[in-house]
């Protein structure tokens, strides 16, 4: 299947006008598959970390949202052990007008503003609620251990 014009255009734009702190590079053998790196937002427990993720555009993209998963371990109430992300725009709030760029920006924003009320990793969320400073501390440590290599 030929690559839709939209994907080509998005890819081109990601290259020519990169978003600061975010990079997405398609695989040569599969242009729907992207290697993604997201910098931890400043003044967040993830600051300084470089989080790798994989992003895949399904066949019916942009009707359906891209599939995205963190590869780097991250301590976050909305991201589970497998790196799956709980984010409304990736699910029910997806709109075909959204793009890879906007989605990645949303994820970056999610790192800066965890939402333990809508958790994916329940234990993390629990802790975040009970003892937020401790949780943040753990997040920092995880970032140091896994995302700053």
């Amino acid at each position, binding site marked *: 299947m030929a690559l*839709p*014009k*939209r994907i080509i255009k*998005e890819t081109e734009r990601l290259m020519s006008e990169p978003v600061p702190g975010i990079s997405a590079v398609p695989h040569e053998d599969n242009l729907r598959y992207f290697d993604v790196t997201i910098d931890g937002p400043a003044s967040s427990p993830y600051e300084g970390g470089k989080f790798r993720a994989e992003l895949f555009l399904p066949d*019916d993209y942009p*009707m359906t949202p891209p599939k995205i998963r963190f590869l780097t371990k991250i301590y976050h109430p909305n991201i589970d052990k497998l790196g799956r992300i709980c984010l409304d725009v990736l699910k029910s*709030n997806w*709109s*075909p*007008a959204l793009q890879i760029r906007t989605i990645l920006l949303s994820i970056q924003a999610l790192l800066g503003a965890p939402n333990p009320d809508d958790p994916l990793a329940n234990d993390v969320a629990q802790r975040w609620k009970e003892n937020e400073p401790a949780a943040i501390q753990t997040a920092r440590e995880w970032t140091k251990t896994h995302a700053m290599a």
Partner: protein
Amino acid sequence: MDIDNRPTKRRKFFFAENPEDDGGDVTLPNVESSRPQSATSSAEKDTLSETEHNDLQPANDPISKDKFDVDTFCAFVGEQVDRDVVQKIQDASNGNIERAVNMYFDGSWKANMPARNIQNQASGITSWMSRPSTSVKHSPSKSEDKPTVPVTLKHMASERYIGSFGVEAWSTKSGTNLIRPGEVVNIERTRLAPKTKLGRGGKPVTVVNRYQKADVITRFTNSRGEEVGRLPEETARWVSPLLDQKICRLQGTCVYAEERLRVNDTVFLQIQAFMLKSAFESSNFVKPSDDNRETGFFLEKESTEEKDLRLRQVALVKLFDEINLLPTTTNSKTAKHKKQGLLRAAEMAEQYDKEKSNKPKLSDTSASPEEEEDGEELEDDQLDMLYQKAQQFDFNMPEAQPASTFALELRKYQKQALHWMLNKEQDETSKKSTSMHPLWEEYTWPTKDANDAPLPTIEDQDKFYVNLYSGEISLDFPVQEQNCLGGILADEMGLGKTIEMFSLIHTNKSEEAMAATAKNVTSVNRLPRLPQSSNSVVPAPCTTLVVAPMSLLAQWDSEAMKSSLPGSMKTLVYYGSEKGTNLQTLCSVSNAASAPNVIITSYGVVLSEFNQIAAAGGDQGSHGGLFSVDFFRIILDEAHTIKNRQAKTSKACYELKAKHRWVLTGTPIVNRLEDLFSLVRFLKVEPWSNFSFWKTFITVPFEAKDFIRALNVVQTVLEPLVLRRTKDMKTPEGEALVPLPPREIKIEEVELSKTEREVYDLIFTRAKRAFNESIAAGTLLKSYTTIFAQILRLRQSCCHPVLTRNKDVVADEEEAAAAAAASDVNGLADDVDLQDLIERFTNDAKAAEKEAKDPINTFTTHALKQIQTESSGECPMCSEEPMINPVVTTCWHTSCRNCLEAYIKHETDKGEKPRCPVCRETINPRDIFEVVKYGGSSDNNTPVPENNDDEDAEETTEMYSSSPVHPPPNAQTPVPRISLRRLHPYSPTSSTSAKIAALLRHLTSLPITTKSVVFSQFTSFLDLIAPQLTRHNISHLRLDGTMNQKMRTQVLRSFTSEDTTSSSPRVLLLSLRAGGVGLNLTAASRCYMMDPWWSFAVEAQAIDRVHRMGQTERVEVVRFIVKESIEGRMLSVQERKMAVAGTLGVGHGSGGGGSIEDLQTLLG
């Protein structure tokens, strides 16, 4: 009669009657051969008397029976008779001496006598001896009455002897001495009124009915005037018309009859035929060279006239055959054709009548314009073949230059046409020679009667003339008149037949007209060359009459002006109020200088004047109308109008008088060979304008499946008469005859909305059920109209569901009748389901109207500007730039139509409410609007359509012309030239439908200077389209069959005007039927066919109104076809028809849905 047959016949008789005489059978040939040759060679019964006088040998009859005494016989006849003559007579008379004597005198013993067995049983009992000898002596007395010296008369007596023949009549009475041999009998016809149910001559009427035909009974009476018997039916059949039509008087002599007659006994008669003077005088055919079947102005006479002619024709042929009268001279043409053929033709005609007898007779319907057409339809390949020859156009044909007063430049082929036409008009050389008319035969009056007595002769009248093809007889030499100084110009539509005709009008003028233009008034006194029998018809030597369909009158008029230098052409449109003009004074020779060169009138006017004259008793002169003048030239435009020779209009046209006659038609044969006959009849092409002749040579062979012969003949008729070129003809250099811009036909599939679909499906299910039921019941043909009406409904519902219901609107010409019939049969009128659906449909529409206002009115000018900018940007979904078919949501977000629709579908399939992809606002799929950009938007002059939307918000329905919404009253900035239209209307509301929406989409995207023609066969559909166009500020006009001539002219003029401001109409709504013919609409370059017709030919003809000579632009045609509907199936029917029709675009005109296979395709 055939001499060689006689011995055999006699033998047979011997065998039956006298078996003991078998021996005589063997010797007989010898006896016969020894007979003097004179007796046999002069076999003609009329010359028998010679033998009688010459052969004075003593009778020596060894084989005579005791009954038959030769001496007695000789004594009776008063002379000695040759022995074998006696033998023969004896045989023939069955030994009855009385009969023998009679036979001897009248010569009937030589006649074939069939059915002898019956007569023998009846005869032979009564002894002849018992009869007083005096009675026998009566027999020769007739010859004594005759003058012995030839008398020469100055004038024809009231009758003249022509010949005699024998006949075996049968008696209807029994009695003694009813009739005696030698007695003069009268042959009489008593015709009862055709409808009388009374018995006749004491007989019940069933006798007549047995043969299921007209009364032909011919009786004979004895000298006392008492009825004795009748002529046998086979004789009576041809004798009766001769008597009825006062052509002949018959006088008989009884040759033999039983003394005691019983009913059904045979009576032998010798009948002498006398031609009556009245036969030659009858006004109907006194002028053979003139129109041989003068139609006259009395239509009620028409019905029987052809039949009478046919009967007379058959009767005369039979009569001449019986009396053995041979023509002195015949034309080579007729000589080739045997009399047998003629009779066969006539008999076939009779059979044909019989077969049709259960159908309504022509005579009953003669007043109605739509009459039964006879003749089989032509297959298309046969038509091809016909035209092949006529179409062999010689590209090297000489050209002729038109007269200097002709203002236009002719193309090469048009100059060639002019040359050809000039030749046809000037072909007068043959007129000078007086050759005999090809269909007539010359006969010499007999100088001696049956008894060889000299007959009175008449000075200068030893010959008479008979046209055995029409049954006419004449004493005058029938001169062949070259009547046809014209022809058939059958160039295909768009090649400029009108222009060609005008070049002819300019170039070939009568001498009178030339003189008049030269101001040489003295020569005007010359008499016109065509002698006219009609008393008060005045020649109009300067005037050409053009008869055209009403819609073309204006076009002819304007073409006349266009093609002529100023002052060189005077036209008169003879129509409506102009009819007050007295053409006699206006066009007369004395007024030549100011007479109109061209009078243009319609078929309707011709017909109505014809009727007026008929009502006034046929006085053509005093009327002062078209029939009161003898034109120089008549041109019938779209002459297939008169293809039915029985139609009143055709008959009226035949009656118009002119020297030159032309017919213009693209289709000289529409579907029957008889179509051509009517043209030929109008052109007065001898001999083909004689229907009997035509029938003999063309119809009969054709119906007898002798196609090759018939078509060959038609080709020979056509070839010298017809000039035909087609648009696809190529010059030898490979150039097209007329270079036309290309034409592109697209089929656009239209999807019905849900409610429309429901209506359609319901009707379809019903139609299909009715179809299947009637197939199962085997009553398909009976319920044909019902099913047809159902199909009609289906087609209407494809256009607009309301069409199927609204009786006021459905009043669609003849189809309304079918629809009415259907609603009766199926009770559709009270149909709750359908009514429900349609109500739902209209309710939906009303709801839509209310709702529609709200979201739409939220668009401000600002929003529209934004929409305009955005819609030319990138689609948020597919990143196409600019968007493909941009659509906008109520939240003002734009995207490609397909993208948004796909997304909405994706979401609804998931069970989600669709939301705007950009702002996630929930969106109603119905509140999506197409962004329509006006073509030619750069044109700032183009005024904005009137801003009536502020006040008339209610008017706004699914389509919303938003560009003018709230523009600042004195806005300096150009208003965004876009408008929004609801993509998915709530429903095809009561005022619009899927098709109308599709049409609007097309029309609004066209540049404002492009003109379009919208065709529909349902004028009621046009009624629904028009308000929608108005609503969207598309100025439009309409032309249909209901408009009168003035209105039509006006419509055409304003449509074709060069004025291209937005107020000038750019759309013409045209009913397929009214607009299919003749109109020139080259101002338009787009055609929209709203609904398919059964045959594409009709649509093609409509398209050709636009795509014809004069068209400079590429023509685009869009045919709207509803997806998955009967319309798609109609296309397959069309395709099949096209395949049958081959490459030739002629032939198949209209014609309905047709065959059962077609129905199967449509509903199966």
